[in-house]
């Protein structure tokens, strides 16, 4: 098993931990963090497996993808945090009400 593959497995693990946290935690900040952990998992898989062929130099395309992905993740997190603050100000709690779910 190569190091790259090991890193990729860690990425998959991060993705799963993030998904679990997103589902079980009610607090919106934890949900937003969970989404970010999931994103980091995907980025780790991309960066790790870019180097999957031992002797050649790493493939630059996944790196470009990760940079684009980080930009997207930052904007999404900024929007999510603003929205969370507004929800907290309006309802008094940074959680989603349960009755909307069915």
């Amino acid at each position, binding site marked *: 098993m190569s190091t790259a593959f090991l890193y990729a497995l860690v990425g998959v693990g991060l993705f799963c931990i993030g998904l679990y946290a997103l589902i079980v935690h009610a607090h919106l900040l934890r949900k937003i963090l969970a989404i970010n952990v999931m994103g980091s998992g995907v980025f780790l898989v991309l960066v790790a497996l870019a180097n999957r062929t031992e002797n050649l130099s790493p493939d630059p395309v996944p790196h470009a993808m990760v940079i684009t992905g980080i930009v997207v993740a930052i904007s*999404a997190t900024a929007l999510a945090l603003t929205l969370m603050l507004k929800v907290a100000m*309006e309802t008094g709690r940074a959680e*989603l009400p349960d009755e*909307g779910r069915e």
Partner: protein
Amino acid sequence: MATIFLAIPWGVILILLPLATGMICFLWPKLAKILGVMTTFAIVPSVVGLGWQIASNGVYRYAIGGWSAPLGIELYADGLSLLMLAATALVGFGVSVYSVAYFERAAAVRFWPIWLFLLAALNALFLSADIFNLYVTLELMGLAAVALTALTGSKEALTGAMRYLLATLLGSLSYLFGVALLYLSYGSVDIAILATRVIASPAVWAALGLMGAGLLLKTALFPLHFWLPPAHASAPAPVSALLSALVVKASFYILLRLWLTIFGPLVGGEGVDTLLGLLGAAAVLWGSFQALRQTRLKLLVAYSTVAQVGYLFLAFPLAAAAGVTAWSAAVYLALSHALAKAAMFLVAGNLLRFGGHDRIADLDRVVQRLPLTAGAFALASVSIMGLPPSGGFIGKWLLLEAALAQGRWGLVAVMILGGLLAATYVFKVLGHTFTQADVPHEPNLVPASMEWAALLLALGAVLLGFLASPVLALVGIGDVFSASEVRP
């Protein structure tokens, strides 16, 4: 003249124009209204121009900055993309005309820039030819859609938007994971190149599962529809119209495009299509049933979207044997639903303005006092129910034809039952528009432009029923449907 017209890069204009004017609207709020309407109007001839190019030269390709496919980003449009762009242009212009009178000054300043960004994202999405670019446009679209949902700042709108944001981010991350797996296994993100390279392997199955789940969540297919009714019902009426008509269709388009080119030929016969069909059938029944139970018009219309999205997925199990018919049906349903559902949400906005509420039972003599709005609702309902001669009828007829030819009686029953349930819930609304409410109220004035925008969109959904053969001929350009037959 014609050669100049053909030489203009219409695809680039479709993306850059709304992006540029969106930024100008943000910087000079005074210009927002006029510039917004002019931009959405200018999109219509641009789509016509692109259509002309496609009709005379075949599939449209444009290498951005002169860098072509494997390295650079290429714009691509065939008949399928063109139809989605046309639906976006028509619905977008109708909703924009409506929005001029709908939004007060303070809200208008926020609405127009975000709507133009959403328009740019939608156009870019329909013109994308690689799966990573689709991810980026999917995110751009999702963030703009969430911001629009939260526009009113009310408690319901904010929680609805937050739920929507979490769902849409989860969907795109799942999709991105699939993109990563496909790129790392086959060394390309270009859809056409991937289509030639993929073979049935664990990586492809994992990618299908991740991308499929993400896109189904964004398309709000039962049972992943939980975020849609609160978000669509609490947004301002023009925004609900855009979300239901276009944003939900965009993720369906990606799913359809990937299925047709990459996944369908590979795993078509292995039960995935049956699963999608079953979920679609459940969505039709569950969405219609929930719509019937609602007491507020906007929630009823939102649940109707859950049901109508289900119809789109009934095409998947039928496509293995009747590819072209089933896919044409799905595209036709998507188009007519876009027009009809936009009209319905605009009608809901009119009634909300008119009576100050959208409780169905308390509608007060709407037919006498807002005849155009009531007419718009009736026409849109014709298409949603699938009665002739509307666009919805053509789509459902094609689906029914394919299901009957293959002896899929279960699907036939679902389609008929779904149509009956749809008739029941729209007549529940229509019935109350004729009667007087227990507590009569003083109506507020509804501007004529808001009534006409709803009526013309609904009329478009019905007229689509007469345009079946040219539209279906257009969808054939690029031959995207016949490529999907199961490979031996």
